[in-house]
């Protein structure tokens, strides 16, 4: 990527567009559209679920029958897939997900301490959403940033060498 002015840099940096297709219309419209898009795709259930979750923030339980009939699957199959993968959720979530790396390279740099701090600062355990609805905290097992641990991901942005102070700073800036 080449940029020679600030405006074009911001477009380059705007990775969020990738996952976030701003939701238009109600849940049913989003689901119907996604089903139409992926009905013919071989093995299309995962991309379909990703798309629904990106638009709505979660995969409503009420959408399972529609997904099942559209994809030619049973409800149990669709439910089975949603529950198998850590990324998929069937309850509403906070606006932004904070992924805290719990894996070994981060442990070696103090992530266990950071985990305690993050949980108490946000007032939630893993899987929990802050009272103001802004953040959901999730564990993650490696973000590929292991040379500069501990790592956390806020939305789609990864941060390196995060200690308690840095975490507070990141939250204050967000």
């Amino acid at each position, binding site marked *: 990527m080449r940029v020679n002015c600030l405006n074009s840099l911001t477009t380059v940096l705007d990775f969020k567009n990738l996952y976030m297709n701003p939701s238009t219309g109600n849940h049913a419209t989003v689901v119907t559209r996604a089903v139409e898009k992926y009905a013919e795709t071989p093995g299309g259930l995962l991309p379909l679920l990703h798309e629904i979750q990106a638009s709505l923030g979660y995969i409503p339980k009420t959408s399972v029958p529609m997904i099942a009939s559209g994809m030619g699957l049973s409800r149990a199959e669709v439910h089975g897939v949603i529950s198998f993968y*850590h990324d998929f959720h069937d309850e509403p979530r906070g606006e932004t997900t904070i992924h805290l790396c719990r894996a070994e390279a981060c442990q070696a740099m103090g992530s266990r301490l950071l985990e305690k701090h993050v949980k108490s600062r946000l007032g939630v355990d893993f899987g929990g959403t802050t009272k103001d609805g802004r953040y959901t905290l999730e564990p993650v097992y490696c973000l590929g940033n292991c040379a500069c641990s501990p790592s956390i991901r806020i939305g789609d942005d990864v941060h390196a060498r995060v200690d308690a102070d840095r975490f507070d700073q990141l939250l204050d800036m967000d």
Partner: protein
Amino acid sequence: MVRVFIPGDTTACALGANEVAAEILRQAQQRGLEVEVIRNGSRGAFWLEPLLEIDSDHGRLAFGQVSVDDVFELFEAGFPRPCEHETYLGKVADIEWLERQDRLTFARAGLTDPTSLEDYKKHGGYKGLKQALKMSPAEIVDEVTRSGLRGRGGAAFPTGIKWNTVLNTPADQKYVAANADEGDSGTFADRLLMEADPYQLIEGMTICAMAVGASQGYIYLRSEYPKALMILEQAINTAREANLLGDDIGASGRDFDIEVRVGAGAYICGEETSMLESLEGKRGLVRFKPPLPAIEGLFGKPTVVNNVLTLGAVSTVLAEGASHYEDYGCGRSRGTLTVQLAGNIRRGGLVEIPFGTSLRTLVEDFGGGTASGRPARAIQVGGPLGAYLPASQWDTPLDYESMSEVGAMLGHGGVVVFDDSVDMLEQARFAMEFCALESCGKCTPCRIGSVRGVELLDKIGIGDERSANMDLLEELCETLDGGSLCAMGGLTPMPVRSAVKYFPEDFERGLEDL
């Protein structure tokens, strides 16, 4: 116009590269200077990120660990012309940490704009495919076999043999699936390759398709890598526009296209059959083998499943010839080894070197010791299912055979250093916990035994019937070892047993120590 390079890589950005890039443009604008900022890939010297580079008559010059606050000073000192500043490192070519490596797969990383096809071709890209298109499928497979290339995903299976099986299995449809799940903690080589040199993966997959007769490829990418996704999508589109993907590639009469599929946060989906299930839109349950994926893989069709680095290396093998690649390495480990130095390490990053270098050389010479400055105590090699090795084992040469002789494995090349504050019982407990969390659920020892392992270690930790529980722990390891369908359950004993064997003192504390 002066060209300034600032990596767009995940780690570089995690250390502030975006902010530095923005500040450079701002300062340049204010001073009426024309600069072109190129978001290159990272060279993998992550400890030096954000690593800024500029062109000069003597080649590229580097500034290391640049922060936003440095930018104003840099401009005052004459930037973007060569200038004196505390971040100035001299010529990139002279940075010892990089200069001492043998970069084959990562030769272009950091040099180029990852999304530029022109850059890729200018630096030797697509030479391999051009060669391949002149050869018969069997000749391509033969070249790969002769190079001695073994899979880089963990199991180290000879790539040529796998391809040969797919080539010789008749079918109306075959697939190439790149395993970009990179689930092993402490590893980032696949990510770096995809973010810094994505066309190499695309080229390798295309060569593979030509060799085995596949017309569709998938890249199964973990969802933890959003930047890699963006870069891959862009590169695939560009390759399509240039007729390097799609119908009638380079007027060869052959078709091949690639789709990126994003995983959903399941470690087990890196196991090849689980990955195939996931690509089919199902739960990632591990399949029984046989049938091998090479015979009945994706949607029941013959499928090559290879790691990102394996497919990347194929481009080099075809471009430079099998013997060039084979010249690197030792014994039955041919080519280069990509080690990822991670955890508590001063100079972490990607080190590509010939097989056979020792852990000590890596961690002391390249790594510069621990980041904390305390003595290193344990090194975990090969991801979460790999062994923890104490100092007495650090002279073992890093190659597949030597590692297995000491009860360890190279895996995907992750090297995670811990200092002397590590509690090895905690680490063993984590291995069991991770197995419980990520088990696909098919085998009882893996699903239930791992939970039991956590409980046992908790008891041992408080000195509760220690010797009886230690015996039970070993029995449990035996059960996992023998009663697991795949290496998730089968290898979880490796970190656990190595912790017990090499660091027994951490399992001997009693109630009185608490």
